[in-house]
């Protein structure tokens, strides 16, 4: 079994020999997972039983983000603004990951993130917005985000979020 793994790893190393960075055995597998993800292979995280909450007022984005999470095997709910995100947590629901839009009516993403943190919610929160000015991102991050991605969200960006937040474990 060990010889077989070494053979496979050696073969794959030949493919990535232009990479100058030395990768440990474990890091190689994570790198390869990402490589496959970027090459079109989509990881299935259904076994990890992750849950997520999509917080966005835009119906198009709600649909897309829901489907993206679905594709990765992550069960998810959708709410329309920050206030609903707070309310759903007040009702006792909890999620591993929250995808938080910034601009929303009633309660925006910055306010909602601050409120959730004040409530003691320790879920990983990733800001997802079209706003990418340094000051705007800084303000959003300082509200309590764990990560940030610029819209439009894609599979590779979502995988990046999952990897950054340590949800993406090697196979």
């Amino acid at each position: 079994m060990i010889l077989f793994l070494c053979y496979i790893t050696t073969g794959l190393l030949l493919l990535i020999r232009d990479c100058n960075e030395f990768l440990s055995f474990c890091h190689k597998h994570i790198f390869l997972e990402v490589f496959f993800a970027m090459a079109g292979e989509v990881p299935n995280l259904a076994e990890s039983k992750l849950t997520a909450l999509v917080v966005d007022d835009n119906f198009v984005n709600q649909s897309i983000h829901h489907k993206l999470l679905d594709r990765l095997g992550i069960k998810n709910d959708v709410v329309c603004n920050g206030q609903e995100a707070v309310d759903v947590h007040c009702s006792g629901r909890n999620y591993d990951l929250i995808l938080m839009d910034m601009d929303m009516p009633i309660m925006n993403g910055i306010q909602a993130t601050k409120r959730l943190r004040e409530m003691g919610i320790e879920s990983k929160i990733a800001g997802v917005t079209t706003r990418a000015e340094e000051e705007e991102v800084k303000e959003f991050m300082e509200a309590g985000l764990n990560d940030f991605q610029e819209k439009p969200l894609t599979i590779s960006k979502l995988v990046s979020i999952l990897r950054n937040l340590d949800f993406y474990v090697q196979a």
Partner: protein
Amino acid sequence: MQRQVALIKQSLFDQGYLDEQFMELEELQDDANPNFVEEVATLYFKDSARLINNIEQALERGSFDFNRLDNYMHQFKGSSTSIGASKVKTECTMFREYCRAGNAEGCLRTFKQLKKEHATLRKKLEQYFQLARQAGPKEIARRPK
């Protein structure tokens, strides 16, 4: 017919109506949701029609509330970006620049062009989806669930 569908799709990209984000959406289609892109496109055109209406009403009032107009256009741009509507997105960006500059004439001119691009995209996508449905699943990017 499948070739026709492929040609129509290619022309949408070649003429700049769509960008790679549209392909990202097609990648999300699977056996459980074989018409996902068409469903999202339908949502987009419904939502964008509402925004166009809001903006028209705001412009007809005569007194330009550039903040309100910019907010509407921010939403419009967001949706357009998410679906890969490249030309519409470009007009949205231009409109917002005119808002920030307080240029009413620029806003009116750009809005007229935006509506034109939006209508053209809608017509072309409707044609594409209709043909794609007739052609069958081969021309739709599908992944087994």
